[in-house]
């Protein structure tokens, strides 16, 4: 049983070779997946064209459900974007080096989730063609966006977050892009030459590189927290029951980390399987991720429970009525599914056997994501269904247009990710080298290994010959 995060005897050249290999010669399966993603996007594009031409009507939105899946899915994707950058930054600062093999794709996931999420506030606008009015640009009309609106905060926050995480991803990738440049030919070489910005690995570059990476990590941690707090402000700043909740900022951040971690597990397993990254995306790293996810799940559960308690014992009859409606009303099936997926299912992560069983984890992580998606839906819609004015109570089911666009957003994300893994190294080569180097020379892993070691495992670990140098 593998207990080490990584085999420290792995050769640097092999790391280069393995990762670069993953970037070339897409197999048939890749093209099929890409085509499937594009097809999904086409569904969404057709739906959006229809919606653009006819108006928001076909989306099935109504009075009082002015928002529905679009905003729920927006929050979902924003949430998913959080783990990559935030975990990468936190783990970098606390020097948890097991992040190194997995942070690259997690950050890419962040960027692409953001790119997906950013589409939704645009799609949901009644007059898409005027969306730039949200941005503070100088016009001679003397009018500005309303800076009080949390939607404008969203625009600022998402722009900042997208810029910063894209830069974070890019900066962290520069040494790897140099490796790619050195090994590539043809168009790829031209591309990587430009992108690697003339990186040559000299000590000056490395020195500044270390500082910038640390500085950006420092910026990104509060940024990521603020971004999801701001997204929660879309709801918390309102006076609607079920939205106007003081615990929303931490609740959203926890939910975001949770769904992000779940997505990391999903992609971890997929990459590990398809790119045969068994040596880098090792089961111990998986286990660590799972433990982290479990911890976050429990935080999320706790925040849920205190929200229920605060509402139940609070003095707002409107909010209480809404809570009752969530429990037993028309949304109850989704609500309980969400609670099951979000709070009960993560207990599978507490068992080592299950944690180490990749197919189980794959399925579980999908369900966790489903739960998180439902969470967002259950935040947005029941409040609109059962708000202050009982005459305006209503229930609705989203139309095919909304579903198609939500469905297509997964295709969009998938497509971006698929393109990414073939164009950019999805495992950080230089950092895995660092990790290997570090473990080889400082033996930090040894203590840990001892700590975890079990009698039955000793043999396999003790055999260094298996993992060649």
């Amino acid at each position: 049983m593998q207990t080490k995060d990584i085999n420290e005897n792995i050769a640097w050249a092999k790391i280069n070779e393995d990762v670069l290999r993953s970037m070339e010669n897409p197999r048939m399966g890749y093209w099929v997946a890409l085509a499937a993603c594009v097809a999904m996007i086409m569904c969404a594009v057709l739906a959006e064209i229809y919606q653009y031409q006819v108006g928001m009507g076909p989306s099935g939105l109504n009075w009082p459900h002015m928002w529905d899946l679009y905003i729920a899915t927006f929050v979902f994707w924003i949430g998913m974007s959080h783990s990559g950058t935030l975990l990468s930054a936190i783990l970098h600062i606390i020097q948890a080096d097991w992040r190194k093999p997995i942070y690259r794709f997690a950050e890419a996931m962040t960027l692409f989730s953001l790119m997906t999420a950013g589409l939704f506030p645009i799609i949901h606008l009644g007059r898409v063609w005027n969306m730039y009015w949200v941005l503070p640009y100088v016009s001679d009309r003397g009018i500005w966006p309303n800076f009080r609106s949390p939607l404008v905060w969203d625009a600022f926050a998402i722009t900042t977050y997208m810029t910063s995480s894209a830069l974070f991803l890019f900066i962290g990738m520069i040494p790897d892009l140099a490796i790619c440049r050195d090994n590539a030919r043809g168009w790829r070489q031209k591309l990587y030459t430009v992108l690697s910005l003339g990186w040559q690995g000299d000590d000056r570059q490395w020195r500044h590189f270390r500082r910038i990476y640390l500085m950006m990590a420092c910026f990104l941690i509060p940024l990521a927290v603020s971004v999801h707090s701001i997204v929660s402000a879309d709801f918390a700043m309102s006076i609607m029951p079920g939205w106007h909740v003081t615990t929303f900022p931490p609740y959203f951040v926890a939910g975001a980390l949770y769904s992000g971690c779940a997505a990391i597990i999903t992609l971890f397993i997929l990459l590990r399987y398809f790119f045969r990254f068994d040596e880098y995306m090792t089961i111990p790293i998986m286990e660590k991720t799972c433990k982290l996810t479990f911890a976050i799940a429990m935080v999320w559960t706790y925040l849920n429970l205190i929200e229920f308690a605060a509402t139940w014992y609070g003095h707002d009859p409107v909010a209480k009525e809404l809570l009752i409606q969530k429990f037993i009303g028309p949304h109850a099936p989704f609500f309980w599914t969400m609670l099951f997926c979000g709070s009960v299912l993560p207990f599978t992560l507490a068992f080592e056997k299950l944690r180490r069983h990749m197919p189980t984890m794959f399925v579980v992580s999908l369900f966790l994501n489903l739960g998180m998606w439902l969470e967002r839906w259950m935040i947005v819609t029941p409040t609109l269904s059962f708000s202050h004015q009982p005459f305006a109570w209503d229930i609705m089911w989203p139309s095919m247009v909304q579903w198609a666009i939500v469905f297509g957003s997964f295709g969009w994300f998938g497509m971006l990710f698929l393109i990414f893994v073939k164009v950019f190294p999805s495992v950080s080569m230089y950092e895995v080298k660092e990790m290997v180097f570090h473990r080889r020379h400082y033996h930090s892993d040894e203590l840990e290994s001892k700590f975890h070691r079990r009698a039955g495992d000793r043999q396999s670990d003790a055999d260094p010959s298996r993992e060649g140098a």
Partner: protein
Amino acid sequence: MFVSNKFLSKRRGKGVGQGKVSQCLAMFFSVLASVFIVAAAQAEVPNAKPPTGTHSGEDVPQPIEFPHDIHADINGINCMYCHTYARRSKVAGIPPTSKCMGCHSIIATDKPRIKKLTEYWENNETILWNKVHDVPDFVHFTHEKHLQRFVFKNEGMDVANVSEVCAFCHGDVKKMTVAKKVKPLNMGFCVRCHEANDGPSDCWKCHK
């Protein structure tokens, strides 16, 4: 009085002050800052009281090529003699055919354009003019308010005559034959003048 009004006229364009920054920072930020501040400052340059802006209008074909120059300039007819509703209604109004005929049943009856006019009149046919100065339908402009203020009350203006006031938005019609749109008549055009002259800043004045 609405709170922001009195401050609108006080705006003067000056950039946000910056301290000393390192060379690199200065280079970088000057680019960025120029996007926001410099452009903003330029937009805030106080206007002369009549609104500014020009527009090169197209020639609009009309059923009868009405010569504004002959009427308003050579004969010095007041604009409101024909556009009679301007002082009491939203719309300035096109002169009714009866008004044209009031003079032209005697004057210049042999001119081809007048013959055309007479033909309309005798056939009891309304003339469909093509609209030159059009604003979007969500803009509810009122001639009455503007004329009452700038012509009749002569508030804060040193205006010699009506046509000068009309020229704020319609250009020097006196020098035109068929009217042409020579001012942009867009929101910035309106807003700058409202700011300069303490006009109302309530959106609902014009948009409703």
